[in-house]
């Protein structure tokens, strides 16, 4: 414990120098502003702003990049709430109730609770990193391909529970998501699958392309068909900040989600992506009236946002303690560190303690700054919703196109987004929900990869999933979740059948 305090002291001493403080603020601010552009997620933001940090010494540069990362995460949830465009996989869940709240005139409350929940989660996650980061890494390493596969199956179970309406429709959407995730080059043989001979599909469909299409563009199409509903906010804009009652309602979900997010974020291989989905499912199951979910339940914003931020933060653990990036954003951070002459590895903590602890301390400072930046901005964002829709949707479309193009500098991505926009519109018309499809899509890739790795390593024996205790336990929980989700539907179906 004295060690921890000494180390954190060193960290704060490093992070609180005027230069580093300024860099942290700059990173958070720029990250927020760019992250608010629809479609520009953390990866694109960091990649674009990487050259800005060349002139700065490594610790400061990394503090700034980390600031851009959280800032862009925050910005991503802002677009999810205001215009139903998730900046990245983890903001999909925020769309569900966050945008519903915005439509009810509660955009300010949704944004406020997202910021406060994230701040709380960020604070706890920083402490987790500082106190038990290193031992946790060793635990996470026990997770092999078979265990991941079990976790992903569990995730798909969550996707079914996530659905508002019929379980059958949810299963259809999850399966379509899985199918879409198999488009692209086969990892083991290098053969192209389901690419229809289009070269630009050979790396598969980008998440942002799919998400922006089925959420953002489809939303615009739906708004345009109905002249009365053109304004995002029909009624008066209510309070700008959450009330004490709101906070009380959101507190439990935030605490639970912080725990979930912290644990899932540590798992290498992007376990963090599951965190918001898991939190949403948990809150929906715990709620006295689950039917409010999807129609603007504050718990459905508070929980997932806290889980998202906790996961985003603890995802730094494998990078800082092992030097191995758990996801694409962290891989970019590795690159940035390397450019600055710090090659991340297991020794960063002992070899450059000021860098390591400085970054940990700056995470907390960054979270505080984001709160300070974002709370006043809420008024501005909410006022943006009053812009006439004929101006608003053209601007959203324009920025969507820019954002999508900037991911790979590829015009085809923009065409694909337009295509998925139309597809998403049809889904709305058929009453099918896109959220389970996106979760299926995100998990599908990892799931296939882990399944095949596990089978390759076990030489084709499926027993590997049952013999390894962790994977067996995860698969059993998944089975239980699916049974719980499906049974009431089956019973209801039979009751209806009997009535007739």
């Amino acid at each position, binding site marked *: 414990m004295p060690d921890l305090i000494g180390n954190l002291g060193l960290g704060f001493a490093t992070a609180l120098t005027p230069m580093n403080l300024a860099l942290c603020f700059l990173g958070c601010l720029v990250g927020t502003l760019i992250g608010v552009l629809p479609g520009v997620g953390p990866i694109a933001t960091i990649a674009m702003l990487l050259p800005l940090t060349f002139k700065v010494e490594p610790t400061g540069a990394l503090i700034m990049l980390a600031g851009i990362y959280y800032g862009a995460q925050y910005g991503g949830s802002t677009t999810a709430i205001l215009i139903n465009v998730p900046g990245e996989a983890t903001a999909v869940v925020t769309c569900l109730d966050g945008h519903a709240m915005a439509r009810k005139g509660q955009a300010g409350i949704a944004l406020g609770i997202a910021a406060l929940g994230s701040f709380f989660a960020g604070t706890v996650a920083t402490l987790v990193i500082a106190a038990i980061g290193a031992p946790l890494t060793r635990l996470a390493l026990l997770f*092999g391909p078979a265990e991941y596969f079990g976790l992903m199956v569990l995730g798909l179970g969550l996707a079914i529970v996530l659905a508002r309406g019929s379980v059958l429709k949810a299963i259809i959407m999850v399966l379509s998501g899985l199918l879409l995730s198999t488009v692209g080059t086969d990892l083991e043989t290098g053969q192209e699958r389901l690419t229809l001979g289009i070269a630009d599909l050979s790396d598969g469909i980008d998440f942002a392309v799919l998400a922006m299409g089925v959420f953002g563009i489809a939303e615009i199409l739906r708004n345009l068909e109905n002249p009365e509903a053109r304004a995002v906010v029909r009624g008066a804009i209510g309070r700008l900040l959450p009330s004490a009652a709101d906070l009380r309602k959101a507190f439990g979900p935030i605490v639970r989600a912080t725990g979930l997010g912290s644990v899932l974020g540590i798992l290498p291989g992007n376990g963090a992506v599951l965190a918001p989905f898991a939190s949403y499912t948990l809150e929906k199951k715990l709620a006295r009236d689950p039917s409010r979910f999807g129609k603007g339940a504050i718990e459905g914003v508070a929980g997932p946002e806290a889980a998202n931020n906790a996961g985003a933060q603890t995802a730094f653990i494998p990078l800082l303690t092992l030097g191995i990036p758990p996801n694409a954003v962290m891989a970019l951070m590795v690159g940035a560190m*390397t450019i600055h002459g710090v090659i991340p590895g297991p020794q960063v903590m002992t070899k450059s303690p000021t860098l390591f602890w400085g970054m940990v301390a700056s995470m907390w400072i960054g979270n505080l700054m984001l709160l300070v930046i974002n709370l006043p901005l809420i008024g501005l964002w909410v006022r943006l919703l009053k812009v006439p829709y004929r101006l608003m949707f053209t601007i959203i479309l324009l920025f969507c196109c820019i954002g999508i193009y900037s991911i790979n500098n590829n015009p085809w991505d923009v065409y694909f987004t337009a295509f998925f926009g139309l597809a998403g519109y049809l889904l709305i018309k058929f009453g099918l929900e896109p959220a389970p499809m996106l979760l299926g899509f995100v998990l599908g890739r990892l799931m296939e990869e882990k399944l095949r790795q596990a089978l390759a390593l076990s030489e084709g024996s499926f027993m590997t999933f049952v013999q390894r205790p962790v994977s067996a336990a995860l698969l059993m929980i998944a089975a239980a979740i699916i049974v719980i989700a499906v049974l009431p539907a089956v019973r209801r179906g039979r009751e209806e059948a009997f009535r007739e």
Partner: protein
Amino acid sequence: MNRFVAVLAAASALFATAAIAQNYPTRPVTIIVPFAAGGPTDIIARIVGEYFSKALGQQFIVENTAGAGGTTGITRGAQAKPDGYTIMMGHMGTHGAAPALYPNLKYDPTKDFEPIGLVAGTPILIVARKDFPAADLKAFVARLKDPSAKVKQAHAGVGSVSFTSCTLLSSQVGAKSIVAAYRGTGPALNDLVGGQVDYMCDQIVNLVEQVKGGNVKAYAIATAQRSPALPDVPTTKEAGLPEYQVSAWNALFAPKGTPKEIVAKLNETLVKALDDEATRKRLLDLGSVIPDKAGRSPQALAELVKSEVARWTPILKAYGAAGQ
């Protein structure tokens, strides 16, 4: 009279191109990097690009166009206007292995480019989990050849450097490994450190800190000389496998038809960059090998591309036949 006009025209044309080359560059130049930002090739491009920006007085901007093992970006580069304002960072995969891996490749590495020069080689390291039961490379290779040992290899996906370089190793020693494919070096390395798989081959920059930290052990480095970044790791020649020589090289190319003067100017700048103290140090810190004077010319790069295509094609085609 006619002859006079012709001479005049020729002279003015010559003067014009000379002037273009002399003033070049008058606006920012794009370096297409066919991989994601933050990867080894991207880092090398950014380090060299920074020197170019300073030396030539115009920004050299890195544009990451990732996809299909780097061939998406290189295809775009090959089709760009050959005016010297779009150049690209090719590498062992895009200009060596690609013709064997991508049957529909839209460019020919040996014909569709003006080579500018080799920038840096990144040596390949053979590493195993830290408790793998083999003391040195010889013992390790002996286990690879033994089907009952069931040694497990990880690679970062077909077409990646770790895939091509380990496929070369397998074909040279006749390895009977079990192979697991990952999406990228990070996840593969993670499972190697966690002991889920036994070994992999990859670029030194991705592995150097893991070796130093004792998370994995290195059997050999596939270059002629030891690396200053890991002086204790023997070369493949010292360790008894001299035929295994492989390096993930990175080199600058311009689209076919770029004026000779501009290519010459870029090459001249590259040669200077590789002698520049600060640039050199940053490249060496990554574990890169900087080519000697003779290796930096456009001709040397053209030769390298030809020999690499000839070398990889049969090895990778054989893998494809076995894999199907």
